[in-house]
């Protein structure tokens, strides 16, 4: 029983990181109508920037997180302007651009850092213990950061003019443009937010596990799995989908290996898609 509870707690932690990856993907999809396959590499870059700033330069980890989010937010704006803007809504072409970016970013990181795994040392080493369940502060803060960022994003979309403009563009691009919304600006904003969230997610994952140039591929697959499960373009769906996949990733390894957990997750999504092609909370 304790093992099960412990796994649920672990799943919750992984789940919130998946949610952060998926939120970026789903926002970019709803605004730009493309699946941004290079999202996993932004996640990987986030982890490497935090590694570089905190381990090599010795800057405080929390400041490193903020810097990583800002830097990759700006990278997101540049990517939108020079790579993705002209391929808005084109699934095939955007795949090619993303594959190019994946190879480019991975190679740059391998050339400059080498391909070995890296560790970001823990800043806080205390462990919260409730009964027999142990939750390191590091992981608890990952959940906390995840929840805060998700709520912040939710409030941003609901309460600000830019957020409402994003909703408008997601619903009807031409209609929004006719109302005087600068669609290109909103696209850039969506990429900036998406990349910043991915950077934080990657850094959190890097702090809990390890940092490696190839960490992006699996994150990308899981992020896409989450948004497909929850429904493309749905923020609430991304949260629910992320937590479901997180629980699967946490609980199934109790009884079988981690690969089986991935198989269960992906097969579940394939089945759900076949029964309900628009995902759990997706609009058609």
């Amino acid at each position, binding site marked *: 029983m304790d093992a099960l509870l412990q796994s649920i707690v672990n799943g919750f932690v992984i789940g919130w990181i998946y949610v952060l990856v998926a939120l970026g993907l789903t926002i970019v999809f709803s605004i730009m109508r493309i699946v941004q396959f290079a999202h996993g590499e932004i996640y990987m870059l986030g982890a490497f920037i935090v590694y570089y700033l905190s381990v090599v330069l010795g800057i405080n980890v929390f400041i490193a997180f903020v810097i990583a989010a800002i830097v990759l937010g700006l990278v997101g704006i540049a990517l939108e302007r020079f790579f993705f803007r002209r391929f808005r809504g084109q*699934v095939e072409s955007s*795949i*090619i651009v993303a594959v190019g970016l994946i190879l480019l970013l991975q190679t740059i990181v391998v050339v400059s850092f080498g391909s070995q795994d890296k560790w970001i040392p823990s800043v806080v080493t205390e462990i919260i213990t409730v009964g027999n369940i142990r939750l390191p502060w590091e992981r608890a803060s990952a959940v906390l950061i995840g929840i805060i960022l998700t709520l912040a994003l939710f409030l941003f979309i609901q309460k600000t003019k830019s957020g409402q403009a994003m909703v408008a563009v997601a619903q009807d691009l031409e209609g929004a443009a006719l109302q005087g919304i600068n669609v290109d600006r909103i696209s850039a904003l969506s990429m900036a937010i998406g990349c910043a969230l991915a950077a934080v997610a990657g850094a959190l994952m890097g702090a809990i596990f390890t940092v490696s140039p190839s960490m992006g591929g699996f994150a990308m697959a899981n992020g896409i799995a989450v948004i497909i499960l929850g429904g*493309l373009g749905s923020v609430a769906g991304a949260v629910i989908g992320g937590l479901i996949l997180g629980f699967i990733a946490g609980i199934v390894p109790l009884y079988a290996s981690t690969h089986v957990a991935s198989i269960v997750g*992906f097969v579940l999504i394939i089945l759900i898609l076949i029964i309900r*092609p628009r995902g759990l909370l997706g609009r058609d």
Partner: protein
Amino acid sequence: MKSDRILRYLAPILLFILLPLFLQGNQYYLHIFIICGINVILASSLRAITTTGQVSLGHGGFMCIGAYTSAVLTMKFGFPVYGAFFMGGLVAIAVAAAIAYPITRVKTVYFAMLTLFLGIVIMLIALEWRDMTGGSYGILDIPPLGTISIPGLFTIDFSTKFPHCYFILFLALLILLFLYRIERSYLGMTLKSIAQDEFLAASIGTNVANFKAIIFCVGCFCAGLAGSFYAHYNSVLTPGTFDIFSSIYIIVHVIVGGGKKFSGAIIGALVLTVVPEIFRVVKEFQPFVFVGVLFLVIFFLPEGLAGLPERVRAEIKRISKGRAQNNA
């Protein structure tokens, strides 16, 4: 006109038949020739699937099924090599047929994602089914293709790379001919009509899901055969070969070559296999070459590499026209 056309098809085929003779001295060149053959089969069969407007991101998964089926059947169940070779294709088509109906009913983006996950699941099963596949250690010492001999005429012994070149060339030509016949048949026309307007095609009585499923199975069969060949050629199989990127590279070959034309997938697979190898000297910077080709094509040649001659011809016409106007 007719002889001109025959020449256009026969000249490249003749070139590829003669090419291994010139490369014979260098094992590395022969290896690239063989990998080119495999990639051409994969890209062309994936292109056949995309003619209905569906992008499959799990094609490498079906290659994986073919490869493991063929290897396991020969090594664990004592199948003759060529029997197992063919079974690789058959098992791939069986898996494809089992899932084709549900997955060809969803929309384009979802189809791409479903097939992506399918590819990952197949790879993970290869990783996890240790009794059969050896897990992450893979399968070693897979027997090569058996000796083909016609008494009194010739014997082909597949112990070196050289005969493999002709085997893959023969297999690739056979599959290309097969796919070309499909493309130019009634079936091919129907598939194109589905790509243009699914609802219109359905309204005149085309069973859209049925046709999509058929071509999906055909494509996966070819990928399975390519996988079988790869297993016996390489003699080592590890699940890592069939990761997400193996599938994504195949679709990259198709799109960079130009998915609209039959020759596009072939050109894409050849160029994107050979060009990075030429730049092998730059070592870890090698992916930049691949990336460079990708970006050049996607930004400047929307029709893909196969559209290059037409583009050049149009440019020349435009320039000469401009000159004529200037003179006038």
